[in-house]
């Protein structure tokens, strides 16, 4: 792939790639690291990708564009708000021996307003820190209410 990401977020986790992948794609566990939201990842290419809030809202919809367990997941990330261009999010898991390297690449398919860039920065940083904490210590994400950008 020749294109370069618009943003990168990454962490190292003391767990094998299979465990990181299992947590990332297990809908039932996703609220523990995703601000209480459910993340549904279809099992195959072209399957739906969905984020559901506790009150049933679906702020993000999309499609699985590529899936290669336990290494790579690429989804389209379509924020259901006017004025936000479609993004693509790529999760990469690399085996580093004693740890896994979990990387999130953000690809912007249009000009993303600063407030959404900020919520991406804050959001992915917290999410990756939470996935790391959950896998390494078993502690769930402290309940932080993340308001969608107004």
């Amino acid at each position: 792939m020749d294109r370069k990401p618009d943003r990168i977020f990454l962490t190292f986790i003391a767990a094998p790639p299979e465990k990181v992948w299992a947590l990332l794609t297990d809908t039932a566990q996703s609220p523990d690291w995703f601000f209480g939201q459910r993340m549904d990842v279809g099992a195959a290419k072209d399957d739906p990708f969905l984020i559901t809030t506790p009150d049933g809202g679906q702020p993000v919809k999309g499609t699985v564009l590529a899936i290669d367990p336990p290494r790579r997941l690429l989804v389209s990330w379509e924020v259901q708000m006017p004025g936000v261009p479609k993004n693509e999010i790529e999760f990469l898991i690399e085996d580093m021996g004693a740890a896994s390297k979990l990387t999130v690449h953000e690809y912007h398919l249009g000009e993303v307003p600063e407030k959404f860039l900020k919520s991406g920065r804050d959001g992915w940083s917290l999410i990756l820190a939470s996935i790391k904490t959950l896998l390494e210590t078993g502690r769930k994400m402290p309940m932080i209410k993340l308001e969608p950008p107004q």
Partner: protein
Amino acid sequence: MEEDVLFRALADPSRRLLLDRLFAKPGQTLGELIDGLPMSRQAASKHVAMLEDANLVAAVRRGREKYHYLNPVPIQEIAVRWIGKFEAGRVAALVKLKRKLESDHGSET
């Protein structure tokens, strides 16, 4: 320790300047990053290597080019860790205070 590497990487104004520039414009080559700065390519390359070791800079290669990004996650991990500790400390202090007040009160009556 992982944090020693992180704090050492942050404890230098030139490296913080490079992080500021990557924050303002993600995905720069080394050449773009030092454009207009009184910093040699060699010095910048050393600084960037330290920032990469601390996981504060992430990079991708595309063809012959290497693009650099600010990775905010380690800062967040430190925040999560210390916020957790501060809360635990406050809870412990309150428990102690409660015990002391209650036992003082108990001895008076």
